[in-house]
């Protein structure tokens, strides 16, 4: 039985390696500017993983908010605080080792958990038609066209409605009881929006230049 290369998996590997590698880079780098850069890459790769998981809207948000917003904010912070450029703050190597041990054990735990459920270890199989004898093609691509992995996902609308209090994705559920708890996220949305506002105001307040006030 010949298994064709699943491109979805390929991209997953690509993005995940990128994300992980740069995340590690973020960790190991001492230069704050580089860290910021590596982080951008890592977060961008993560956005790619979001796309691969069918969460196009979230991926987009990831790119927009994180890469376009948060990181800019961070870089501003770097610039504002780094009076001497490229300040490095040395971390004692003992702490590194300690952190490594702790991080390693945490990782071990998490990985064990990640692989502890059989249902999670494999994604939905390809359609039967995709598995052909070696050399036989045609049918397979056709079959793959119907695979949800490759189908474009359109979640923006659903999310928008969800945030407005309507779960259009759940329309198929007939049972009213099951639907009862799915009445959308309008309230959290509102809360979050207000929260954001508050945060912004607060941030502005906190970060305002002190000497001005004193003058």
């Amino acid at each position, binding site marked *: 039985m010949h298994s064709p290369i699943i491109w979805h998996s390929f991209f997953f590997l690509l993005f995940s390696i990128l994300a992980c590698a740069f995340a590690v880079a973020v960790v190991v780098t001492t230069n704050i500017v580089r860290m910021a850069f590596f982080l951008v890459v890592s977060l961008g790769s993560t956005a790619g993983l979001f796309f691969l998981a069918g969460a196009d809207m979230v991926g987009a948000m990831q790119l927009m908010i994180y890469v376009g917003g948060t990181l800019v904010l961070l870089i501003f912070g770097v610039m504002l605080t780094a009076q001497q450029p490229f300040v490095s703050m040395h971390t004692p190597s003992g*702490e590194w080792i*300690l952190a490594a041990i*702790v*991080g390693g*054990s*945490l990782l071990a*735990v998490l990985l064990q958990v990640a692989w502890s459920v059989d249902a999670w270890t494999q994604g939905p199989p390809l359609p039967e038609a995709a598995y052909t004898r070696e050399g036989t093609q045609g049918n397979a691509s056709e079959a793959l066209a119907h695979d949800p992995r490759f189908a474009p996902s359109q979640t923006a609308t659903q999310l928008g409605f969800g945030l407005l209090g309507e779960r259009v994705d759940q329309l198929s559920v007939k049972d009213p009881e099951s639907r009862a708890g799915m009445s959308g996220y309008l309230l959290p949305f509102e809360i979050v929006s207000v929260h954001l506002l508050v945060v912004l105001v607060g941030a502005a307040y906190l970060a305002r230049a002190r000497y001005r006030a004193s003058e």
Partner: protein
Amino acid sequence: MEQVDQLASLVPLLLGGAWLLPLASFTLIFLFGPKMGRHGRLAAYVATGAILGSFVLSITSFTMWLAQHGVTGAPTHASHDAESQQAAAEKSRAFLLEPSTFDPAANHFTSVAYRTDDHHEEAGDDADHLQNDHHGHGTGTSDHGHAAHQAPEKVVYTGSWYPLYRSKTLLIDIGYYIDILTVSIFCMVTLIASCIHFYSIGYMHEELTDELVDNECKLPDGTSLRRRGRFHRFFQYLSLFCFSMLGLVIAGNVAMVFVFWELVGICSYLLIGFYRERHSASTAANKAFIVNRVGDFGMIIGLMALWGSLGTFAFGDVDGRPGVFTLVTQAPGGIPNGMVRLAAYDQIEAGVQPTDEQLAIWREQHLGYGLLIVAGLGIFCGCVGKSAQFPLHVWLPDAMEGPTPVSALIHAATMVAAGVYLVGRFYPVFSPEVLLVIAYIGAITLFLAATIAIAATDIKRVLAYSTVSQLGYMMLALGVGGWLAGLFHLVTHAFFKALLFLCSGSVIHACHTNEMPLMGGLRKKMPWTAYTMLVGCLAISGAGIPFVIGFSGYYSKDAIIAQVLSFSRANPAHAPLYWVAAGGAAITAFYMFRLWFMTFAGKPRDTHIYEHAHESPKVMYVPLVILAIFATGVAWRVPGTNLSLANLIEDGRPVTSMTDGVFWSSLRIPNEHLSHSDVGIHTTATLVAFGTALSGFLLALLFYGTRTLNAEEVQQQFPRIHRFLINRWYIDDLYWAIFVRPTHFIAQRVAAFDRQRIDWFIDSTARWVRGLSRLDDLIDRYVVDGFVNLLATWTYGIGLSLRRVQTGRLRQYVMFIAVGTVALFVLASFLWSYAMAGS
């Protein structure tokens, strides 16, 4: 009949008045004494007036009594006289009818209702109040009417004035029991007391000053004591005494007797200790009271035995409640049901029902007789104390520390005779065994005191021992069944002994000394005193012409010796009593004339004293003369009538039911009439009494009158006996050694026990507790607190170490979070696997 009715309420009223007058006088002097004239002179008139008033009232009631009842005279020689029997029967009929003669409107009627009411239990309190609200009224009752076949009816008025304690059936009250004996004694006491009051006005005049020098009381610096006079106090105490003494005589029950018993005791105490600055006086006063209390201790036991078994103290029947006499004399064998019941306590407790048959069975076993004896002996114990009988006679000689009129009144005539009076009064309750004890006590006392009197030189002490000795005579007489003889002697003795004491007081007043060896020849200086005293001596010696006439003492002593003789014939084993009585008569005559000769006859032995001696003032010797007259003739029969002292007393004779001993079945108390009617006994006794007295007189004459014999030689020949007598048989020393010192020793031990043992225990407990608490404190501080502190320190340390964890370092926190998470995971997985394995 109408007169009877009146008398029943009138006599108690009169005698009650006579009784209370001295109390009024006492109260007056107590409150206003110092303000009564200069130095309280008027107090004497108040007191004297009061006692005179009492005397008048007593005489009045006496006369009324005679007018009403006459003298039945169970005469000494004609007790079986048909005429008198008839008279007695008539009278008894009168008394049996008496209740119906009461005016229905009068309150007495209620009491009659009581008499019909058998046990008086249901009578209810309201009626009782009614009855008792009328003090001073009494009922004439016949004491033991059912025993009338034994003797003629006796006239008695009983009643209750007011209660001290009352419950449903028990009653302790102030009441009266008046028979002819009471009235006679009232007259005797008030008469003598009046004389002595007058006498005292003279005798005590030294006290009428602001500064009196008491030569017998030396201060530590050698000077004599100077003090204010206390004239009014003396009369105040005398009045109180008269009140108490009369109360004792009129008393209607033993409890009341006891009350006044104590009161005369305290008067005696106050008067003996009148010269309170003198240590000897106050000690003698204490001694008198405490020794009397020893007797009272026995008396209380007797009272308890009576009270616990009979539930009454009353002599006669009051308001229908049977008195002690009725209960005893009417009970078969003399043992009242109450006593039987109490003696059978154990068996009743065990469930035996005290039915009449059962009581009879018990009575057969003499159950309760012991109680009767205890009651009798107990009461007699009190009399022993008060009448200075043998074991308790020691106080009376010391009591001579008091002023002489006091000695005369209290310690010769009245109070000390109260014991004899009580024995006489309580006669029906004494069982033969008790009477025998009384007789022996009397005999011992008589002999002992007489011997001591021989050797004594203090004029008052001789008289004191003489008194003790004579009281012994009376007790002996009562003990051998001579009820009449004893009480007869009581009255005659009261007169001549009061006379003798007053005479000695007159001498002391003149000589300022008590010592007879310093006197002599005084009859020339003070003839009134000397010859009145001679009368007294003759009377006490029982002088008289046999079978014809004699001084009062002749009759009474005769009666006593006759009865003792009769007794010793009936009980040959007890013949020593007779010898003692006869011998005592000789000794009496000897020491009395020794006294008279030493004092009044011969040559003056101390010229200084003789020079200063003088006859007493009139106010003193007039009473002597009055008393001398009575001492001479009080026992004489009023010519042409039945009226004589003996007959009067005979009228008051109580009914006795017991003549034979139970425990000593050979013991027999002879009937007193026997000694009078039996010519053999009577004549023998008269001759013996006369002979012994004469021999005593002759001996005294030889020793001290003519000085033919030398008394000093005799003393030197028998020094031991002399010392023995001078030291009063060493009885005081003995008592000191076996009673007083051990008591003090025990007291010291007890007090020491308190301090050294109980308090020691308490204190050492306290110390222990303190020690423990100190230990506890240490434990607390070092163990408990240590532990707590350790915990706290640990906690603090842990906190500190944890504080170090709280480094404030952000990165470490992150590390902790991570480590914690991992640890949670590991833990959870462990638990999970366990849970899985378990399921």
